[in-house]
Structure formats: C-alpha cells, structure tokens
C-alpha cells in the first residue's frame, strides 16, 4: 500500500496481440511474454524512484 503524500507511477508494457489461428505452443509463448512483461514493468516501477530514469 502506498503512503499518502508519496510519489506514484503507473507503467504500461507493450501491447500483446494473440492471433485467432494460434497453436497451443504459440498461446503458451504469449502467456510467457505477458508474464515477462508484467515482471519487467513491475520491477521497473519498484525501482523508478530510487534509480532516476532518463
């Protein structure tokens, strides 16, 4: 939970689209892409205020 009067940041990852004709393997690949993206942006958000982003 954020503290009042602190600074907050929302971060978006790149959009992920899933082809209608995707195979099971491709779906699993997309699932991993989403998971990686969420882990990445969350790590980036958590260090956003300690590491000054350029």
């Amino acid at each position, binding site marked *: 939970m954020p503290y009042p009067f*602190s*600074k907050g940041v929302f*971060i978006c990852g790149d959009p992920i689209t899933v082809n209608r004709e995707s195979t099971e393997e491709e779906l*699993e690949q997309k*699932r*991993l892409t989403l998971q990686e993206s*969420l*882990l990445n*942006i969350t790590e980036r958000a958590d260090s956003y205020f300690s590491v000054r982003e350029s």
Partner: protein
Amino acid sequence: MVSFDMKKILNKITITAAPFLASLLIRFLAKTMRISYVNFERVWDDWRRGKNIILAFWHGRLLMMPIMYKGRGVSVLVSRHRDGELIARTVMRFGIDSVRGSSTRGWLGGVKGLLKEWKKGKDIAITPDGPKGPGFNAQMGIIHMAKITGLPIIPMTFSASKKKHLRVGTALSCLTHFQKACLSAATPSL
C-alpha cells in the same frame, strides 16, 4: 441463536462498510500523491478513439488501478469468494463493473460474462495471477480472451516511492480477525 445472528449482522456490516472505507482511502491516496504515467500514449489514444483493450495487472498491484482508468467503461474479473465481493463493491464506487468468475478453477468461469461485457463495448480488466496465486504466474485465461476477441492485452503496473508491502489477503484476514474479535466480545461466555 444469538451468535449466528451476530455473525450475519457483522458480515453485512463488513461487506457494506469495508468497500466504502477502501474507496475513501484510495481517493485520499490519489489526492495526496504525485502520480506519473509512463508509456501510456497508446492506451490514451485507444480510449480517445473508442478502441477496446484488455488490461492486465498483478493482483498485488490492484489497489490504485481504479484511479488510472480513463476509458469509456471497463469490467473487471473478480473471484466468486468474499474478497471478490469486496473488490467488486469497491471498484463499483469508481464506476467500474465486475464479472464474477475464477481464473484458477478453469478459465471458462468468467469468459462468458466477460464476452458479454466486451460486446457491450467495454474494456476488460484481468489479474492474470488470480487472487490465490501462484503469484506472478500468468494463467492462460487472459490469452484465450485475447484470442477470441482479437483485443490487445496491455500489461500495466503501479508502484510508489514509499509503501508498505501488504497483500490484499492480509487486509482481508485482518477483517476476519476483527469480526471474530467482535463476535467473541459480543457472545457471553458461560
């Protein structure tokens, strides 16, 4: 039975009061915090042009999400359990609808409801790790939703410069303990 009635009344109070208090807290935090938005250009553009999206964020980053939403309407997938009810009632105070379902007990659970919302022209929000976890592990349901609808998934997150790590489950278990304490205080011990 006295205790049974007390339990029902307390439950009713919790389910009404907790979402109200949570929404006050979220609004208070939003008012006092300085919030930045990174890489939002595409999302804002989609909203302006009325193009639907699927929002994806970890369950643990759910709290502040209601204040980020600036689209034309969104429905969020929440569990059928009591914590889902509390979340549904909290986001309702921000004009956000919800669909009850379960990502852990098969992705089909909430899909029908979500498709209905999408057909009404709404965005969809899903926590791909679900309320029960395993945390930070995306379930397949959201990928199937994206496949069926053709909508892009936008991964999203939130963090703050100062925060206390508190899982949603922790707050809820506090509530349960509070209720139990009230109950035992209200029940005459023989």
